[in-house]
């Protein structure tokens, strides 16, 4: 029970920090908005295939910049304070859950921007939002864990990008396939396999993150 309580308390703290600062979410919103604006002005008419690819690329970069600050926004004396106070599992769990929520907001905003400016190419809404959900979960687990490593270095943003891009490749390839199906770019009956693969990847990386994070925390 203590674990859940700690996790919830830490999440509440992150949410409060975000609410007081507000710079992260507004910054990402601005990033997404300007990127989609550039896409719209250069393409004018975005074909579904390009829509699919661009959507996930924009979302990928938006989520990286949303998550990279997870472990660097608070100074190290305060980190030491948490270390003496809490269970490391609660720390990684709270950050991951918070980032899942953040990424879902970011992905819905990205989708909104695309729909507003480049048109809504989604044909099968439930499948697309399922892809968004599973994608947010998978990306935030991996990115949060890598942010915990990269946060220890001086140039954490560069390290974050080069370490996490190859790692999220399996998730991203499956997501693009899944959403290509939701956009009716291709018809595939074995879509449930893709969903199972995504869920499997999410669970696997969550398990690894929970297992390995205590070693990172011990500094």
């Amino acid at each position, binding site marked *: 029970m203590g674990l859940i309580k700690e996790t919830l308390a830490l999440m509440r703290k992150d949410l409060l920090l975000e609410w007081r600062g507000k710079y992260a979410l507004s910054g990402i919103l601005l990033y997404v908005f300007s990127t989609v604006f550039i896409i719209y002005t250069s393409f004018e008419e975005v074909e579904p295939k390009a829509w699919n690819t661009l959507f996930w690329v924009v979302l990928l970069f938006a989520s990286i910049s949303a998550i990279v600050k997870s472990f660097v926004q608070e100074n190290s004396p305060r980190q030491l304070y948490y270390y003496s106070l809490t269970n490391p599992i609660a720390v990684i769990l709270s950050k991951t859950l918070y980032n899942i929520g953040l990424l879902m907001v970011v992905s819905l905003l990205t989708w909104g921007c695309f729909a507003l400016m480049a048109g809504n190419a989604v044909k099968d809404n439930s499948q697309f939002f399922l892809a968004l959900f599973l994608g947010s979960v998978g990306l935030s687990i991996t990115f949060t864990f890598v942010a915990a490593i990269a946060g220890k270095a001086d140039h954490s943003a560069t390290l974050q990008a080069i370490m996490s891009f190859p790692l999220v*490749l399996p998730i991203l390839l499956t997501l693009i396939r899944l959403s290509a199906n939701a956009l009716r770019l291709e018809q595939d009956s074995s879509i449930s396999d893709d969903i199972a693969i995504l869920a499997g990847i999410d669970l696997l990386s969550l398990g690894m993150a929970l297992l390995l994070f205590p070693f990172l925390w011990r500094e």
Partner: protein
Amino acid sequence: MKNHWWKALGVIILLYTFTAGMLLPLKPGIVAVNPSAVRTGDTVTLSVQGYNSFYTQSKTPVRAWLKLDEQRALAAKDIKILSDNALRVSFDIPAHLPVSRRVQDFTLLLDNDVDGASVLPSALLVTQDSIQPDRGEALWVNSPITDLHEKSGITFPFRNILAETIRNTYFHVALWFAMLFLFIGGVSSSVRYLAKNDLDADYRAQAQTTVGLIFGLLGLITGIIWARNTWGAGYKFWNLREVDVKQAMTMVALFVYLAYFVLRMAFEDAERKARLSAVYNIFAFVALIPLIYVVPRLTDSLHPGSGGNPALGGEDLDNTMRMIFYPAIIGWTLLGFWMAQLYYRLIKAQMHLEERVGG
């Protein structure tokens, strides 16, 4: 010598791999047939170009068939031997074929007592003027394929597109297997570091991963050369939709391990560097496993083992090749671990020197 036997074993195995893999001849094969497409009702004379074959030395006459399926084949009307590597074979193609397709492909099969049987799949395309399977059945003179000879001596199989490049199996494929074992070794060293906090394990992980990376690059290069020779010059290895699981896995693994070395460069403190890179190494290795399931679903690839391409297994890797392929994997792996051990000692000596200079 007691603790060094595996190094000697590795070297001996690799010497055996190189000698046997490079010197053993290929089985006789058929390189090309001209013409390769005809119409029904003709008598065709095919000029056949053989490879590694000895048509003039055969004691029994050379026999030839055009094979339609497992039961049905046409025997040659006349065979003229021009040289060891060239034949002229005549066939009477009936006016109608017993199939309901417009274009039917035939497999050419040659047999003599020196070379044994050799095959060229889809050697001849026959176009029917009109499709009448009933009359085709009536006209068909079946001559079953019997009493095929076996080539004596130790040889590698002849594969049409691969030909002599089949020997690359002992380098390209075996190097990638060795790379995988080295990466697994690196991950287990990382686990040992986290369990025991012993910096030696971290140096070992670094050394094994470095050698694994080198093997991966060598495997990639041999793969690119091989692909250019067999799939054509237009093949691009960086195009993920054209490549396949094995290529893509290796490319991504190389990215991951390059990131591993960048991560190591980012930290000065040895303990911190060791812990963070060990954690990343383990996480990355596990995170890449799902690629095995993900990439094959993207597209059909040219690579062996997908889309009907020949691969390891079945008739493609015959027993002679297995006798060299499996030892090659063991040999490269042993050599890799030896290299890793040498590099590990170098790292350790460097650290020791730094400590003494620094202290």
